[in-house]
């Protein structure tokens, strides 16, 4: 086994990825069966899949952490992780890009066209003569009934402040780590996680409010659809970020990481900044403009 620090560390086989595949397979097979109406088997298979996935993560990342702590990863391995994280985040950016693109396309083209803009005069005149192309909209058929849009200057503005301050706290934690002040690292991480969790609680409240008071639901036409898919997937990514930071916190408490060698920490903080920037996009384009 190549364990010296001057050669690139290569594992000799891995048991984890097949479980990862089985987990994904179970998850998706179960989810498919479930939404197809098999309400007993579906959730069971899906649950087993998710469980397998979680256990796989423990096993896989556990192995990597052990290897990292035992010092078999050299500089080159470190660069590999950095590049991989950069391109992983890039792929996530493109994933959100699909939904932002949808929002822009709907607002700049689809809705004006339904209102008769460009060469769509007859579409409007013959199909939807009463439709006025204004945003927010639930379309010519008023699907989902009358609703109100989510105002930006309530919870969303507070959430913006929360996420922006969490970017500061995670950076403070990083500086502390580089300076070797473990207590401050812990404080910074705990603050970041707390801010992340409060963001999620606020968002849960916002969704509740949308459904109960604003009649803003998934059924609320293109506004509701883009609103929930963008904020929903963002919330999911905040959740993932919180989990990452929690793992990092546990590792700090166990005495992992040195001022020079702590890429896992940086990866989690890169991810957190990415989630933060996506939120700024959301705040501007979904809530505000």
């Amino acid at each position: 086994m190549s364990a010296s620090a001057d050669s690139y560390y290569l594992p000799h086989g891995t048991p984890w990825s097949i479980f990862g595949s089985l987990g994904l397979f179970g998850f998706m097979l179960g989810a498919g069966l479930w939404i197809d109406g098999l309400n007993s088997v579906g959730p069971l298979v899906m649950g087993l899949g998710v469980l397998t996935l979680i256990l796989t993560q423990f096993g896989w990342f556990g192995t990597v952490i052990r290897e990292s702590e035992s010092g078999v990863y050299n500089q080159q391995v470190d660069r590999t992780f950095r590049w991989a994280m950069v391109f992983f985040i890039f792929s996530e950016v493109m994933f959100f890009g699909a939904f932002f693109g949808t929002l822009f396309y709907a607002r700049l083209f689809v809705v004006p066209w339904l209102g008769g803009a460009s060469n769509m005069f007859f579409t409007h005149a013959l199909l939807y003569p009463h439709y006025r192309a204004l945003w927010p909209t639930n379309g010519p058929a008023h699907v989902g009934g009358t609703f109100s849009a989510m105002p930006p200057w309530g919870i969303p503005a507070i959430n913006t402040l929360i996420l922006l301050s969490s970017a500061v706290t995670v950076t403070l934690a990083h500086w502390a780590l580089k300076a070797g002040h473990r207590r401050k690292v812990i404080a910074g991480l705990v603050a970041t996680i707390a801010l992340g969790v409060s963001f999620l609680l606020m968002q849960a409240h916002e969704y509740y409010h949308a459904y109960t008071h604003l009649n803003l639901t998934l059924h609320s036409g293109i506004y509701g659809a883009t609103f929930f898919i963008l904020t929903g997937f963002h919330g999911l990514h905040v959740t993932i970020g919180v989990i990452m930071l929690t793992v990092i916190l546990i590792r700090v408490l166990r005495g992992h990481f040195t001022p020079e060698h702590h890429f896992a920490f940086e990866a989690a903080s890169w991810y957190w900044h990415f989630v933060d920037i996506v939120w700024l996009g959301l705040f501007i384009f979904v809530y505000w403009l």
Partner: protein
Amino acid sequence: MSQSIALSHDAHPASRGLMRWIKTTNHKDIGTLYLLFSLIMFFVGGAMAMVIRAELYEPGLQFVNPGFYNQLVTLHGLIMVFGAVMPAFVGLANWMVPLMIGAPDMALPRLNNWSFWILPFAFTLLLLTLFLPGGGPEGGWTLYVPYSMELGYSFPFLIFAIHLMGISSVLGGINIIVTILNMRAPGMTLMKMPLFIWAWLITAYLLVAVMPVLAGGVTMQLFDHFFGTHFFSAAGGGSPLLWENVFWFFGHPEVYIMILPAFGIISEVVPTFSHKPLFGRTTMIYALASIAFLSFIVWGHHMFTSGMPVSADLFFMFSTMLIAVPTGVKIFNWVATMWKGALTFETPMLFAVAFIILFTVGGFSGVMLSLVPADFQYHNSYFVVAHIHYVLVTGAVFAIMAGVYYWLPKWTGHMYSEFWGKVHFWISVISVNVLYFPMHFLGLAGMPRRVPDYAVQFTNLNMISSIGGFVFGAAQLIFVAIIFTTIYGGKKAEARVWEGAHGLEWTVPSPAPYHTFSSPPEVAG
């Protein structure tokens, strides 16, 4: 170039039997898995194509009903794109990238294993749909709404299968990028990298950029179908055209994902058998990069007839025609490489030459399709089917075959039978033209694509095409026979299999040992 090669001593897989293949983190094992998987999928998708051609042999409904016919067309497309062509290229990348850049393995070996092992599950999910009530997906590989969403039980499985394929491709793409950026032997600067490596670097970037967009798109279909959103319905302020935009924003780069690695292979094979260095190496790299860049701004050429504003039609027409420029550069450079070379025509070279000629035919029909007024006539006709099969079968698939014959001796340590290789080539190249060339005329005469039945005046050309199809399909059995006889025996191959071949992969013995370049080779200027 001077290299020193060090081979590792623990030159064996860690496990035996089936577990070896399930647990392996070795790039050669994983490359083999990808290639075998691709071969199997090539035959599964090919079997569907045989049924399609049998049905189209005569007008009227003979063997299958229209619904099942649509399922066959849909699955054929999805399987060939995601199951056959892409995994074949990833398999070649797995085998060859570390060997060509002097790396001990891929940068992230565990992830590499996972990227592969997601695929069999993805296609299980996809093929499972055939056994559900209502059968498999019917909306075509482009998954156009609303047809695609009106399926029965198969719909969520289709979406999830695509998610799985996407995860596999993104992870594989990340791995290839990182390997190329971070694992090159000292002295192998970016501009010194072999063209195959350059092609894959850019392809992998495209993969990471566009697969997530497809994932987002199919997720929106899932939401429309099950959770009451209105992304794709005008009643709720959405638009079915949104799907076309999302799909083709992914789809056009996707077709380049399926052709850039082919360009890379051809750029390796042609110089070897011309006994000359590649003509215009640097321009080849710039051409690749500009094709990749342009591929992001041409997607509207698939939507000329969808009712887009004229300004959009015009923009996409001109940007599309622009792509013909770097593509032309590549073709001229391959021809210039052969010009006054000492040409020899072993099987890989035969496939490469056929690629250059026939891919150009596909490029020409592409340029015809890129003209908006002409496309109004050709769109949704068999002309498009002819175009895509010239670029994908005589393009991508022929390049894969060239690559397989070229590197098979390196992988197995045996020479394949040149005689049978040539038999395979000549039967394939003749039958493939009998199969696809008449489709141009069918399309121009007005036969629509994706139909199980047609007007009688199209009968003769369809019969010719079907006969070509059956012969082409049968010829691929020769290919399989050649591969397996070469794995298990044949003349011993030398380290430098082809006398005109240069590059690090030819400095290691044939078959390449289980571990290569455990300490990096020196690449001199």
